[in-house]
């Protein structure tokens, strides 16, 4: 498992208070209990802190749209990390 995925998994477990969450690319908000608009923002802020990156409003919003999943979320983190390094 890649480092980004592992760290993101930890963030998910903390935010949703569920130590059993195992991330896979196809996962969406429907698969994780409690992933609503509010916890979505909590998740984004926790991710920003963990990876020391910043999401724009449009990016946060887009992550909740149809067709988006954990895979696209991890890809966005990877893209942002590549830009900062």
């Amino acid at each position, binding site marked *: 498992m890649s480092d980004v995925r592992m760290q993101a998994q930890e963030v998910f477990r903390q935010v*949703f208070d569920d130590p059993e969450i195992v991330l896979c690319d196809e996962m969406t908000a429907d698969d994780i209990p*409690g992933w609503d*608009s*509010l916890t979505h*923002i909590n998740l*984004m*802020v926790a991710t920003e802190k963990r990876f020391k990156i910043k999401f*724009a*409003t449009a990016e946060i*919003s887009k992550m909740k749209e149809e067709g988006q999943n954990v895979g696209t979320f991890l890809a966005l983190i990877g893209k942002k990390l590549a830009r900062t390094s």
Partner: protein
Amino acid sequence: MNPSAIDFNVSEVEFIVAVLLAAAIFFWLPAVRLRQLLWACGNLFVLWLVLPNTQSLAVLAVFLGSGYLMARVLRIWPSGWLLASYIALLVVAFLVLKQYAVLDWVLPRILIRDNVLLHLVRITGLSYMLFRQIHVLVDAAQGQVARISFWSYVNYQLNLFAILAGPIQRYQDFDEQWQTLQPVLANPDDLLRNCLRLLVGVVKIALIAPLFYKGWDELQVSLVNARVTGWKFLVEFPVVFYAYPVYLYCNFAGYCDIVIAANRFFGMKLPENFNRPWLARNVLDFWTRWHITLGLWIRDYLFMPMYKPMVERWPKRAQSLAWIFYFLAFVVAGAWHGSTANFLIYGAMQGLGASVAKIYENAIIAARGRNGLKTYLKSSKVRFAAILLNFHFQCLTLMFFSQVDCRDAWWMLRGLFAASTGYKV
């Protein structure tokens, strides 16, 4: 300019015929630039129809021109202070142009008397332009607008299909489609479905909506003027109570059906604005189903800027205080709908409903955990009760949205209480 400016109506036969004719020739034009030109001509024609005078055009030009320039500046120099200052200026200009009652003590008396300002400058669709402008500016400052041109931006703001009442499309989505303008109705079935949607929209807006509006209007006037009480009140009040929401839904959803279908004829997908709203189980759910693009805008550009800094600073306390920001966001959104107290009350009621929904959800999580919440939400009895409750709450709030005098709305509510319980309030 057109001194007899009209309220542009998308369900009129002339509009539908013009759309179908223009769509028939649209993709015969050999180049994207020519198609854009035809579309822009349509935008200009509608603008001419709805703008009453030259000063309105001048104000609109300043509004759009300054927004475009600011977006360009913010892309290069993303200053939070500049963004906040310009948006504050924009909002003040909006409040003045819409002549909000709150500004009566600031504006010179000459402008307030006989609504002088409203007669001088009247821009149809200004409220939606404000939303789109704020979205573009915030996204530009955050590096989310890859390219922006005046041609694309002006046509985005003045899109004849969305100028009246949305849906609020994102600039990035508009621009991407505007650059290509390819047919999106790939086969005859899609085309037929789109024609059907256009027809359904016309039926909703021109046949069903007026029927309910007439029933509501006549009854509420007689109910209020005659100060009807007793059993007659109990018979007539439900018609007033339920007819307006049906009218509003048919009118707005019908409008959206027409403009979304019309846009698709020209190779552009507008975002959907309705998704079975009366099946929402609480106020927050309702706003993801009713006027969806406004709900998303409220979330992204009102709620998120207030809530996110809170999460950043106090992550553990933020969630339990989120209801405050829901309340504030809905009050502002309510006030945006119009300049009278009705809309402020409507927004406050929506905010209250959203806050209660969030507090209730937090209480269930505290008592049963997230899995407990999941089980609770799965119960069909709970779902049915929640839908019924939310539906009636929405009908109640719409009594104020309907522009009935607030005192009359209050009188009706007191009458309902007295007639059903025997107690007078």
